[in-house]
């Protein structure tokens, strides 16, 4: 017994948003209870350990069981399984192989390169000690002894570019903010991540909030600022709590406040909660919101690095950009410069969602082929359906078709393909996605989220949505496409802010790659993907139907009739085109067209 007292047992449980949603907190309790019941906590150094997002959210709750450094990973853990794992594996010494992660877990990680997310999922986000144990705040401590211009030089040389979507070189931005006149300057962190299907920034803050704070300390020193703001959505309660806790911990250790690291540098960070407006992710709107005014963009031909919050020079960077900074300071510009493609350096985090097997948070080196992300990391499309396109850059990005699958993922190539990096949302679409309907959806989002100040965006997008809706309803004419093509460049040129300027992108890119689908809607009055209700009819292929009655039982409006083991029939007058029969038929007997 005495020989076993130093045996170390650490159970790391995912407590990111995905983990918590899948019941992570209950799993932590269950493990703790099981460890206590088996008297492991008393006998050995056994403990449960809460960590941030592990990336592979589709398999949550993910649990790492480490015994004396040897590690097993379990997937889909529930409180019941937790109890069994402790009894069979920890006590019994036999890992429960059927619950261990499978091939796809390893495939998911094989092509990834985790730099920013390296500690996310390893350390307890609520413990500053763990961050420090992994080398945290060393970069900030060292940076405070380096000349600001040298730091800016390092960041410029590293090739780091804005991860919020614009891709502006971070070092150059810092430099112009440093050179701007005035004593008071601000550093800002944009955590107002509002794109549908995006969760990169929240995962960083939830999994490793100190990395963002450390980046901001370095940035503030380089720029010459003593006040920082983190503008974060109120809809991210977990991220807000962990960020506030991290700030308190940093203040306690004098990493923030007066005379940081016993130097004469003072720096404080304030958290500002956004009130749920997508447009507040736009830099000038974010700044007016920080000023306690309505979050509306301001027309600017002056850079915010010269005149930003309260008219003072302000340097705004995205969460991911800030989290990259300590890594560059610690490992040097050359190291960072060696990662990525020719002009886009480093890694990029994407939230891989939509019609994809391995949904999750992935970090890949810039320039990785899109195919690797979709098929190797993402594990391809579910139900053996065909890949159609991937929408990147959120609602104002564009879609990239299958013909561009071998395109390298970096700022330039995405832009050339008619899309953009955006903050890193990646929505995969399969053959059952109607591109007209998708464009309509994203434009509707921009219509509802725009501030309404300027005419092109307010009135223009309203009419673009109207035209697209008419096309999906089968009321489209060739003139609809020509008006859409007329409105788009005007909205891009004449809108006040980035939201309006990029809003027509989904339409332009779908018109570029999927014009035939628009034409099918307008000329043939047919929705090739079978999504637009007015243009789709579902019928049963009598040869393929074996009369299993599943469709008839599932139909919510009783539109399907037929005898057992006899081909069924859909009554078109009653059918509401909900697709339940189509999705549920195991024999592929339901045809859409």
């Amino acid at each position, binding site marked *: 017994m005495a020989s076993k007292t130093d045996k170390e047992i650490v159970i790391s449980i995912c407590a990111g948003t995905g983990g918590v949603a899948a019941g992570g907190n209950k799993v932590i309790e269950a493990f703790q209870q099981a460890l206590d019941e088996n008297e492991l906590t008393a006998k050995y150094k056994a403990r449960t350990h809460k960590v941030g997002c592990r990336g592979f959210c589709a398999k949550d709750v993910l649990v790492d069981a480490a015994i004396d450094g040897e590690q097993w990973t379990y997937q889909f853990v529930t409180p019941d399984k937790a109890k069994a794992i402790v009894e069979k594996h920890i006590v019994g010494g036999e890992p429960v192989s059927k619950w261990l992660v499978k091939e796809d877990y390893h495939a998911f990680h094989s092509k990834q390169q985790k730099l920013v997310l390296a500690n996310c999922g390893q350390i307890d986000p609520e413990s500053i000690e763990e961050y420090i144990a992994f080398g945290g705040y060393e970069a900030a401590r060292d940076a405070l002894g380096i000349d600001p211009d040298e730091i800016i030089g390092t960041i410029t040389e590293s090739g780091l570019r804005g991860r919020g979507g614009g891709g502006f070189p971070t070092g150059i931005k810092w430099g112009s903010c440093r050179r701007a006149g005035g004593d008071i300057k601000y550093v800002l962190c944009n955590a107002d991540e509002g794109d549908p299907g995006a969760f990169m920034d929240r995962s960083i803050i939830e999994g490793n909030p100190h990395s963002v704070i450390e980046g901001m300390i370095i940035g503030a020193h380089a720029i010459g600022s003593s006040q920082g703001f983190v503008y974060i959505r109120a809809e991210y309660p977990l991220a807000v709590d962990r960020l506030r806790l991290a700030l308190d911990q940093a203040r306690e250790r004098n990493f923030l406040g007066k005379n940081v690291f016993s130097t004469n540098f003072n720096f404080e960070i304030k958290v500002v909660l956004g009130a749920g407006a997508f447009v507040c992710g736009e830099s000038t709107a974010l700044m007016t919101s920080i000023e306690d005014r*309505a979050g509306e963009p301001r027309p600017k031909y002056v850079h915010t690095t010269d005149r930003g919050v309260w008219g003072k020079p302000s340097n705004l960077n995205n969460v991911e950009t800030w989290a990259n900074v300590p890594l560059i300071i610690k490992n040097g510009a050359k190291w960072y410069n060696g990662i990525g493609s020719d002009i886009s350096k480093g890694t990029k985090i994407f939230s891989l969602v939509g019609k994809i097997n391995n949904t999750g948070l992935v970090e890949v080196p810039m320039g990785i082929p899109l195919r690797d992300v979709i098929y190797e990391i993402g594990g391809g499309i579910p139900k053996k359906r065909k890949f159609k396109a991937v929408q990147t850059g959120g609602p104002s990005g564009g879609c990239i078709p299958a013909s561009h699958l071998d395109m390298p993922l970096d700022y330039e190539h995405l832009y050339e393909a008619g899309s953009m990096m955006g903050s890193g949302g990646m929505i995969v679409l399969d053959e059952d996605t109607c591109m007209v309907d998708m464009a309509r959806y994203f434009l509707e989002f921009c219509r*509802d989220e725009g501030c*309404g*100040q300027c*005419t092109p965006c*307010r009135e223009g997008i309203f009419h673009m949505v109207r035209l697209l809706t008419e096309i999906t309803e089968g009321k489209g004419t060739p003139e609809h496409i020509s008006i859409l093509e007329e409105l788009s460049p005007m909205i891009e040129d*004449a809108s006040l802010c980035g939201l309006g300027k990029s809003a027509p992108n989904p339409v332009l890119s779908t018109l570029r790659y999927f014009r035939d689908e628009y034409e099918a809607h307008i000329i043939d009055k047919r929705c090739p993907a079978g999504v637009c209700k007015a243009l789709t009819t579902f019928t049963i292929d009598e040869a393929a139907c074996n009369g299993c009655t599943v469709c008839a039982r599932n139909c919510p409006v009783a539109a399907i009739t037929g005898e057992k083991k006899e081909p069924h029939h859909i009554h078109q007058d009653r059918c509401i085109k909900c697709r339940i029969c189509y999705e549920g038929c195991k024999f592929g007997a339901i045809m859409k067209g």
Partner: protein
Amino acid sequence: MATMINLTINGKKVQASEGMTVIEAAKNAGIFIPSLCYHEAFEPEGTCRLCIVEVSGPIRNSVRVSCIQEVKEGLVVETETERIKKHRTLILELLLGRSPYSKELLDLAARCGVVTSRFLTGEQDDCVRCGRCVRVCRDRIGAYALCWANRGYERKVTTDFERLSEYCIGCGSCAQVCPTGAIKMEDRGVERKIYTWGQVVARFKLERCKQCDKPFAPKKYLDWVRERAYKPMGLKLVDIICPECVRKAERPAPVESPLTGAPFQAW
């Protein structure tokens, strides 16, 4: 003398003083740039986007709004390129789609060669969301009676909680600066009403002129003026006289301001 800046607008050499915007420089040079939200009396907001121009020279060739863009040495401005004309036509068509009966808007559109709109929505709202009324009330008068509500297409000018405004002083500046006649002020008998499309902003009882006995201004407005114009100078407003009577009357002799000692001409 302020530094003069040389720029070119539509091929014409123009001089403007530093800090001027392109639309001001163009106006001084007799070049017309259509606009709705721009007004000399207050800060430009650059929201109607009608005053877009193409700029080049010291800055990258791009489309910018001339009410925000400041003049720059060597700036080349084009107000009537194909690109600008196309965009402007569309913006006017979009505005007409919602406000097809505003005479002022129809006139402006006609001046830019736009007579029909492909974007009729069936709405008959004269307001073009230029925000002049909100800005004059907030930035010039300081009453804060009008404000914006909603966002996107639903954005509209209204009063707090869409009720009769407690802050409105009945000065009528909003109606005065409205480019499309969407806000109106009406004096009927002893009542003044300020109203927009379907919403009454405020109602007031009018005070009578001490000379001609005609009702002419709400008490709140007169108090507001007294508080801000007369009181700081230590003067007392003795008689309330309507503008018409003031114009007819003989100018009184200047009085000495008790505060500054300087002579003050009452009107």
